[in-house]
């Protein structure tokens, strides 16, 4: 109702569509990871929207980085735990 702009959800979908040629040329196993990167960005749609950026893709990349950092942090924690037995 009254919405003119694409929502961030639509924006991410459109960006993904634009990159479909890139994705297509990847190996199947890489495609899975590629989809995962976009899935991780989708976890932060609200934060991306709240940024009011004119170029949202920059903030989308930041969200992807955030999820990667979380994963690294979790892995580091796991290794520490295993090390300490």
């Amino acid at each position, binding site marked *: 109702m009254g919405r*003119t702009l694409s929502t961030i959800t639509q924006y991410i979908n459109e960006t993904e569509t634009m990159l479909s040629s890139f994705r297509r040329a990847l190996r199947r196993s890489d495609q899975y990871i590629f989809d995962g990167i976009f899935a991780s960005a989708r976890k932060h749609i609200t934060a991306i929207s709240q940024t009011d950026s004119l170029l949202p893709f920059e903030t989308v990349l930041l969200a992807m980085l955030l999820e990667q950092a979380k994963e690294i942090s979790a892995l580091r924690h796991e290794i520490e735990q295993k090390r300490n037995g």
Partner: protein
Amino acid sequence: MYRMRMNLLPQLKTGSLLVALTNQNALIPDLIAELALRGPVTVLDGGNCFPAYRIAQLIRRKSLQVDSISKHIFVRRAFTCYQMVNLLESTLLFGYPQLILGLLTTFQDDQVKPAEADRLLTLCLSHIERLCLVAPVAITLEPAILAEKEFLLKRVCEQADEIFTSHSESVPQEKQLSFFPST
């Protein structure tokens, strides 16, 4: 004059009304971005189609000053044909370009009878004529229109100095011919 390519920019000048028949053509955001590089531009959106992110992206491709250039773009939206009239009657006479997107989209509403649509369009066109005296004005229209409202399309094209369309639009042959203003 009836042109087949959508290159409006060189034709935009004060005193000349340009009409483009298009369905959200990709060249419109580019036009807006180009105009923003040169100075202020007003967009009156009657089709709820203002492609904000696309425009920002195009500005970025042309310049690093995305923030300051985007400040040149002023947008106002109309969601009913009565709002469209209000939009045009309240537009102040500055010399910078005025783009009217989807002028007739709100007129498609079947709650608005053809006679009423005609009356409102007369008001809109008189304001547009007024704007043309001081600024370059371009209008975009969706080529597909309900039969009972087709006369509106004809009226706008009759007032135009130049009409643009592009090959990619699926405008049926009969319609194309009917858009020739009788010059």
